[in-house]
């Protein structure tokens, strides 16, 4: 039996054509379609409008199966999606545009849940998108994170084998995140460090911005491939600019007006947060452009410096409230004293050697200049 297309599914649920087209427009916006030329995916040569491209895809494609696994994580990325201020849209994507297997959000539990996953994998082998939240752990064959008696490494390899594409959501799945912070006892790493034979896209963030995760899922659905990425496998439409590039406090940065503390006049005036530890200049993410809570605000706008949560090692990249230009390793007093001592010792030793040489040289010179010289010469002659 042929599977129902997404459009048919939505129509059966009572969506009017008008609402469908509206939805397609919203989706096109979420994907940042204006960045991606849609021609190739649909085999057309003309440029249809983004909305038409989406509509075309939803009319012809069946729902996208998604398997969502969690490893070492806090479920914050799932929380962010399920509670984002556009829950209807998030729900719509996860329930009506995709068919999801999600360990945390699904109703089934225990063996039932395991069975559901296996069935889902078997049925859609080679077609599903694997979303990973949380970091895999390499230490001791992955025994520090197990589900249903299987190590996370086995679970990941098993699920990755049948995936058409993999989306690592959150900093943990992308780069190891907080579990990978020094000293990283479980040897947490990113999904892409382990899975080399499948297309992987990273949606780092803490949590990942929900609209970026759903936007990337939709991109795969509509275009049939993952979006173009940067060298960290982050989709360019969302990670092409730094927080600093689009920051609304930027004019204050350029003018050199900085908040010195969280409650001074500068902070109230909305001055730049660089001195309070802002990592915006080196952080590539869509916060400043997309914002959170349906464009309401984002951390820097609300008065908190950017933590750099979408970058590798963000947990070890210097203190959150330490200026970005501050060195990350600081010499303590004792080692400074030791170093000075070492320099002084070597200098003094060499100076000592010099002094001894000098006094010897002086003596020889004196001897040479003394009247005995003649006698010595005579002695030599005699000999």
């Amino acid at each position, binding site marked *: 039996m042929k599977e129902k297309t997404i459009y048919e599914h939505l129509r059966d649920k009572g969506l009017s054509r008008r609402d469908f087209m509206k939805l397609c427009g919203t989706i096109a916006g979420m994907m940042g379609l204006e960045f991606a030329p849609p021609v190739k995916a649909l085999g057309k040569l003309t440029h249809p409008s983004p909305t038409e491209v989406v509509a075309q895809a939803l009319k012809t494609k069946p729902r996208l199966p998604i398997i969502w696994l969690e490893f070492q994580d806090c479920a914050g990325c799932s929380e962010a999606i399920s509670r984002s201020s556009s829950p209807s849209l998030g729900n719509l994507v996860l329930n009506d545009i995709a068919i999801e297997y999600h360990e945390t959000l699904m109703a089934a539990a225990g063996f039932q849940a395991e069975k559901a996953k296996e069935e889902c994998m078997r049925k859609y082998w080679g077609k599903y998108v694997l979303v990973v939240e949380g970091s895999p752990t390499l230490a001791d064959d992955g025994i520090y994170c197990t589900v249903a008696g299987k190590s996370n490494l086995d679970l990941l390899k098993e699920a990755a084998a049948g995936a058409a594409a993999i989306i690592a959501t959150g900093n943990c799945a992308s780069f190891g995140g907080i579990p990978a912070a020094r000293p990283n006892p479980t040897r947490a790493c990113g999904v892409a460090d382990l899975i080399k034979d499948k297309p992987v896209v990273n949606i780092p963030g803490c949590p990942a911005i929900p609209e970026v995760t759903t936007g990337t899922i939709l991109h795969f659905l509509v275009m049939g491939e993952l979006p173009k990425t940067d060298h960290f496998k982050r989709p360019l439409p969302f990670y092409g600019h730094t927080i600093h590039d689009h920051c609304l406090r930027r004019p204050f940065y350029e003018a050199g007006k900085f908040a010195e503390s969280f409650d001074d006049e500068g902070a109230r005036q909305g001055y730049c947060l660089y001195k309070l530890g802002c990592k915006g200049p080196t952080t590539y993410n869509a916060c400043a452009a997309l914002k959170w809570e349906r464009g309401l605000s984002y951390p820097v706008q609300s008065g908190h410096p950017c933590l750099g949560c979408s970058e590798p090692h963000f947990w070890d990249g210097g203190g959150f409230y330490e200026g970005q230009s501050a060195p990350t390793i600081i010499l303590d007093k004792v080692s400074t004293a030791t170093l000075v001592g070492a*320099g002084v010792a070597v200098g003094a030793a060499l100076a000592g050697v010099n002094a001894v040489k000098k006094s010897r040289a002086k003596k020889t010179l004196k001897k040479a200049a003394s009247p005995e010289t003649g006698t010595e010469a005579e002695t030599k002659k005699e000999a």
Partner: protein
Amino acid sequence: MDWTEILRFSRGPLLHVAMMIFIVGMSYRLVKVILLGWERDRAANKGSKLWGVILNYLKGLLVLPFIPWVRRTFRNNALTFIAGGLFHLSLFVVLAFGTAHILVWKSLFGISWKSLPTPVVAFFSAAGIISLIVLLINRLTHPVLKLLTKLPIWINWVMVFLPMITGFIMARHLWFRYEVIFSLHLISVSLLLIWIPLGRISHFLFYFFSKTIHGAQAGKRAIMP
């Protein structure tokens, strides 16, 4: 190896090691100079050593730079004098009043102060860079200077120029991704820190020795230093 990783390395271990070498090296140089021993000054004390020292600093740092035409160095080569002075002033402003550098001092010594407005710092860093270029051209074209300038002096120039130019480019957000130019700035700063004890830029310390000793000698003889 990507630039994020290189930046992590240069902000951490590289700068750390460079600072250690700088501290060991400068302590070593300092002790060696001090223990070279002083020539005994047998002149009778006709005035005040302290007064001589004070006069010498006043003259050298506060008065003469602003009425340079009384100086022979200025009359002989005004360009060296002006560009050299402007370079040192700019370096001081950028290092002491640039926001990023204040944060470095804060992390090292726990104290911080107000920064100057970015446009002012930007002006001085541009002035510093231009001065350095002028000094270089001067050295390349002046027949005597050219003969006097040996390899270590050319290296000095490069070592000072690189942090200045990378810092300026970074602060203006030109051409490079921020983490790339930030790494280049830190790598060049680290090279400079390692180079300083090895070469003549250690004059930032020894200058004060010669200034003090000359002042004291002149003071003892009750003559104008």
